[in-house]
């Protein structure tokens, strides 16, 4: 009797400690979001999004940074998406179960763990200096693309792995070739998961700063890029500049809040889209 009361009390104490710690943690994390939303909301106007920066980046908008980030996202995905999906398909569908497959997977995992600043160093050394692209959209996109590559490979692999073997066997039994099976049966079924991964990696790429510091990002540019060999401004770098080395940091604070909020909104929207895809496309496939 005695011990069972102790047991109950211990459990109540332990559970309440975890509850309280979780509440505190969620409150802190949530207040970070709330703080930036609250402070930044008043700066988000149509002008802010569509105008050039003015007066030493203390007024005006962040249009060139948005354009820059969009072009980097597009560029990096053109590189990473096809490569990543193809690579994922090979690893899961073709690669024989041997040391080679393990090696490739190990390398992919390693690449995923490399810090973004090392990507920056590498991108600068290879694309900017050795291949002589200079600080440019193409150098930045390639660097970011390589950074996103392991994420997309892993997501593709997982998505393909989750498709039951019986679907493949059913397709083979009907006389379909391996490639037909993959293209017509396996890929369509795993597409929602692959797309989800793609969207989440877009989120990551659009927020990375360290890899673009020395490959593409410009402190301030008065005009928009005209070719892939131009430098661009980018949202995360813009926020970094505004908050640490702007010409007038006090006056550009508002711009910084606005930029931070835009970055959060981008991530929020991408997460929402990913969740919607996950929900609806998955349902559609199940109903079929």
């Amino acid at each position, binding site marked *: 009797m005695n011990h069972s009361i102790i*047991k109950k009390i*211990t*459990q109540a104490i*332990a*559970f309440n*400690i*975890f509850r309280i*710690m*979780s509440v505190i*943690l*969620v409150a*802190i*994390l*949530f207040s*970070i979001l709330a*703080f*930036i939303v609250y402070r930044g909301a008043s700066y988000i106007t149509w002008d802010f999004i569509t105008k050039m920066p003015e007066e030493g980046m203390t007024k005006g908008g962040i249009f060139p940074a948005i354009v820059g980030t969009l072009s980097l996202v597009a560029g990096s995905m053109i590189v990473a998406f*096809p*490569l990543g999906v*193809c*690579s994922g398909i*090979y690893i899961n569908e*073709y690669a024989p179960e041997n040391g080679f497959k393990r090696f490739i997977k190990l*390398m*992919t*995992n*390693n*690449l995923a*763990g*490399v*810090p973004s*600043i*090392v990507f920056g*160093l*590498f991108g600068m*050394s290879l694309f900017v200096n*050795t291949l002589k692209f200079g600080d440019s959209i193409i150098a930045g996109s390639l660097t970011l693309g390589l950074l996103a*590559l*392991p994420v997309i*490979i892993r997501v593709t692999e997982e998505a393909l792995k989750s498709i039951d073997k019986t679907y493949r066997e059913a397709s083979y039994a009907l006389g379909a*070739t*391996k*490639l037909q099976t993959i293209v017509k049966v396996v890929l369509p079924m795993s597409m929602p998961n692959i797309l989800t991964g793609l969207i*989440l990696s877009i*989120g990551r790429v659009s*927020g990375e*700063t*360290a890899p673009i510091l*020395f490959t593409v990002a410009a402190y301030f540019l008065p005009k928009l890029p005209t070719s892939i060999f131009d430098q661009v401004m980018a949202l*995360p770098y813009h*926020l970094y500049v505004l*908050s*640490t080395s702007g010409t007038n940091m006090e006056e550009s*604070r508002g711009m910084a809040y606005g930029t*931070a909020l835009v*970055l*959060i909104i981008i*991530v*929020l929207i991408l*997460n929402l889209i990913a969740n919607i895809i996950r929900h609806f496309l998955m349902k559609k496939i199940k109903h079929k």
Partner: protein
Amino acid sequence: MKKIFERIVEGFLFLSSTVTTITVLLIILFLFREGTGLFGKSPTEEGFTVAVNKNNPVSELNAEQVKNIFDANIENWKQVGGKNDSILVFRMDDIFKFYTEEELAGVDTNMTLLASKIDEVIQKNPNIIAFISSKNLPANPSSKIITIAKINLSDFFRGEEWFPTSQPVAEFGIYPLIMGTLWVSFLAILIALPFGLAMAIYMAEIAAPGVRNILKPLIELLSGIPSVVYGFFGLIVIVPLLQKTFDLPVGETGLAGSIVLAIMALPTIITVAEDSIRNTPVSVKEASLALGASHWQTIWRIMIPYASSGITAAVILGIGRAIGETMAVLMVTGNAAVIPHTILQPMRTIPATIAAELGESAKGGMHYQALFALGCILFIITLVVNLTVEMISKKRKQNR
């Protein structure tokens, strides 16, 4: 025909799958090619030398001695193994102390004239040490060039001074950077771990499914927020808060970095730890409950030990991320390259150093190479972290 096409596609897919491997190899190649270039070089800037009078018995000095002489911390030759004589420091600008403008007329155009004048100065002053351009050494000098100890790996790791651009000798001691990185990262994990584990246990076992379904996407969202945003938040909120709370001269401290990093590492730790707790087989959990163990006893004595390797992996992964994180740390730690004594002082980490200085370093120069060497260190650390996590998860699979 069909078969050939299938073969071609397979070949193409195979090539794609090798891209990550090639990238890793290229990273190693490029990083290490630049990074190792630093070693074996003289730490004086290219095209410059340090010279003394021919009769001075001293012919070799190490980088630190040279720096201390030029900083006037060493003022007598005796201290570096020479005669008992005070040291006279000579830099190019000092030429005007020895000659009038008229005497130097024409040196701008006539390099040999300048060289001879410098030679004259060195000859006249037995106690002189001169930092001059190699071009200004005459063909047959009466001065002696000092051999300065080359940069080596041990000085690089153990050196306590990071002055990559100082004259006449640059110093590349990364010990303070390593310590800064370790302090900031480990404290971050110490802060994040109890909260992360508590939250993971709460989400996996205690929370109602409805609550969990809200928390899970929130955590996912937080892991997607860019590090600059966290850095910005740290700069605006945490830094002033710390400055006020601890009454500090500056709020940009190692602690600020640790707190920001802890917040950033939390989503990873929570997700991985929660997954591994939830991976405990239901039947094992039920067996414990069926023996009369309370839910908490089951969590504590059965599920957490079962998930321990996954939790360990989460911690190591978290440390790896923290060590490599750049922007947020750069923004809030104050970036002073000194060996830390307390967490409440400005610190500088390895990635922050690269981000802050690479833009200013001359391509191919020693400073540039030193920053690549730092990149190599980061790369090796992450490699070790990844391999460790890999080993842990492999062991885990074997145990099942």
